[in-house]
């Protein structure tokens, strides 16, 4: 019952506040601060964070449903929330000291500071060990130098988790995660990327030039970075899977509606078997994706390892989003290729879900490792 009520509450919010502007903010590549304003008191920025730090204390399925329903209206805003909650807030909840939690979390869970996760660089991404940004100790501070690219929420972040190596000679073992506030000296936000989809999310580069941060801002120990990153990404993948699922659901609903309205040969196109086959496949895949995702969430909440389950959910949900949005455009025909309908936006938004927070190739790597580690 709880999950049903969560879905209803978030859907009512999304349909009232996001759906009417989703097309415009995509066209104008505008981040909707006015909606963020409304989301703050409802605790959208602290979905799974403990109540003691201003969070909503949600379980993982409720979390997935929330991201799914927001993304059903606007995947770009869904992206903002999943990045903020699962790879911005969560690593601090999981790895932060009590002092760090008290210092950084309330502003993040209250939505005053939006989080960003900065692993990807020109030569690092899928290869998390390839980070070249350096954080060199200077007394009680670290001096960070480097460039991060394709940072989701980059243009609007108030707090960034920066992956940097403390010993450039031994990058693998010295990767650390630093909490860097936007007003830190030497921290600059680059140009907003001109991307195919998710256009309402200001994805950007971040530049760190002689950026000085106190040692209290190091999350965990130097060398914990890769572990923290991979743990955060496991959770992040549930969020991206949920986002992809929301997109697929939206495209599926639009396709069903349109197929009943559109007449060809004096019949609605939904009466043709080819269209029915498309719809049947879409329905089945969306349902399978949803079950795979909720299973991964349930495993996470049970406290068991869930890396492989999260990777399967992310792999399948994102592939489903790409296929279902593609078919939705196909069913809409020429209109589907026009900006007059939402399906072209879903189609553009879907592709990147197979790329970020671990490409589909990386997900297969994670799944294969788990498969091969099992005794046969």
């Amino acid at each position: 019952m709880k999950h049903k009520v969560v879905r209803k509450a978030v859907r009512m919010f999304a349909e009232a506040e996001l759906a009417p502007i989703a097309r415009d903010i995509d066209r104008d590549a505008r981040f909707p601060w006015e909606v963020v304003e409304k989301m703050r008191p409802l605790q959208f920025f602290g979905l799974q964070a403990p109540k003691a730090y201003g969070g909503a204390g949600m379980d993982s399925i409720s979390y997935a449903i929330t991201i799914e329903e927001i993304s059903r209206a606007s995947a770009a805003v869904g992206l903002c929330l999943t990045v903020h909650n699962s790879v911005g807030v969560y690593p601090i909840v999981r790895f932060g000291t009590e002092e760090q939690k008290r210092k950084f979390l309330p502003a993040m869970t209250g939505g005053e500071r939006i989080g960003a996760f900065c692993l990807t660089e020109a030569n690092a991404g899928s290869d998390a060990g390839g980070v070249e940004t350096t954080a060199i100790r200077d007394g009680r501070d670290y001096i960070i130098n480097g460039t991060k690219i394709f940072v989701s929420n980059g243009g609007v972040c108030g707090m960034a988790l920066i992956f940097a190596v403390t010993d450039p000679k031994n990058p693998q073992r010295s990767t650390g995660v630093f909490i860097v506030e936007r007003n830190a000296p030497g921290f600059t936000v680059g140009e907003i990327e001109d991307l195919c989809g998710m256009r309402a999310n200001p994805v950007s580069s971040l530049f760190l030039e002689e950026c000085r941060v106190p040692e209290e801002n190091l999350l965990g120990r130097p060398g914990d970075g890769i572990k923290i990153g991979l743990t955060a990404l496991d959770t992040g993948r549930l969020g991206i899977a949920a986002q992809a699922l929301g997109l697929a659901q939206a495209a599926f609903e639009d396709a069903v509606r349109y197929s009943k309205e559109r007449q060809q040969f004096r019949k609605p196109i939904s009466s043709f078997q080819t269209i029915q086959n498309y719809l049947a496949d879409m329905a089945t895949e969306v349902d399978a994706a949803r079950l795979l995702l909720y299973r991964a969430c349930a495993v996470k909440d049970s406290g068991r390892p869930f890396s492989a389950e999260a990777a399967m959910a992310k792999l399948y949900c994102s592939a489903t989003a790409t296929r279902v949005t593609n078919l939705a455009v196909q069913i809409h025909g020429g209109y589907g290729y026009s900006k007059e309908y939402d399906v072209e936006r879903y189609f553009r938004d879907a592709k990147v879900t197979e790329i970020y927070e671990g490409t589909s190739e990386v997900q297969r790597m994670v799944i294969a490792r788990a498969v091969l580690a099992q005794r046969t």
Partner: protein
Amino acid sequence: MLKMVVCIKQVPMVSELPWDPATGTLQRDLAEGMINPACRSALEAAIRIKAAKGGEIAAITMGPPMAEEVLREAIALGADRGVLLTDPKMAGADTAVTSFTLARAIEKVSPGFDLVLCGASTSDSETAQVGPQLAEELAIPGVAYVDEIEIQDGTVRVQRISDHFLETLEMDLPGLITVTTGLHAPHHVPLGGLQAAFDKADIVSLAAEDLGLDPERIGLKGSATRIINVYSPTAAKKNLVLTGAPKRVVEQLFERFDDKIGGAIGKDLKTDKRA
């Protein structure tokens, strides 16, 4: 402390609903439910009164077991506790029997209440009868269709629009008001509150026996009215498709509808054309 009771009803989320031809009632179990919009405004009114004056809010609903959902939602929004009246014997109640059942439950769960708030009407039946009848059953004064509400010592002053007049009325407490959706636009449900409403919430479930109600007096059995027929009105619209180049389409539009278009823009197009 001001003791408030808010009556809320779970209504179907969609207007097109299957209904039971045998009894002429809606098949509620097949639909997604939500808090009736005017009931949500009544709850919002109570929440605002509580914020200003303090007090306690008990949300009460009668319906199938799944109506518990709307109580959790009400608690997430700011109610202190929930009361669920659920019993197959209560099913199919008409408005008079619903008011009777609610009145007996309110007397039991909230003795000494000050103010009962109801939605002015429900989106699934629109009778607007339960609130006023409930005031009669509780033998307290009631005002329907209220917009503005001001609680003073022992009284409530309300405003409502009645036949294009703005009425200001005052009544002694305890009293009952039914609230419109006009001034009390509800808030969105806070997610942390929702989680808390499921982790830990004060909800009691009561059946007819718990209230000592005679099964002959309640539900479909006790109801004096029967729904003869429920149907979705079908609009018989005829589409007219104008074809040709845009200029020709516009010309046809004016040829056929110049009187209506002229009326809409406040011009006599026929006279204009002649001029």
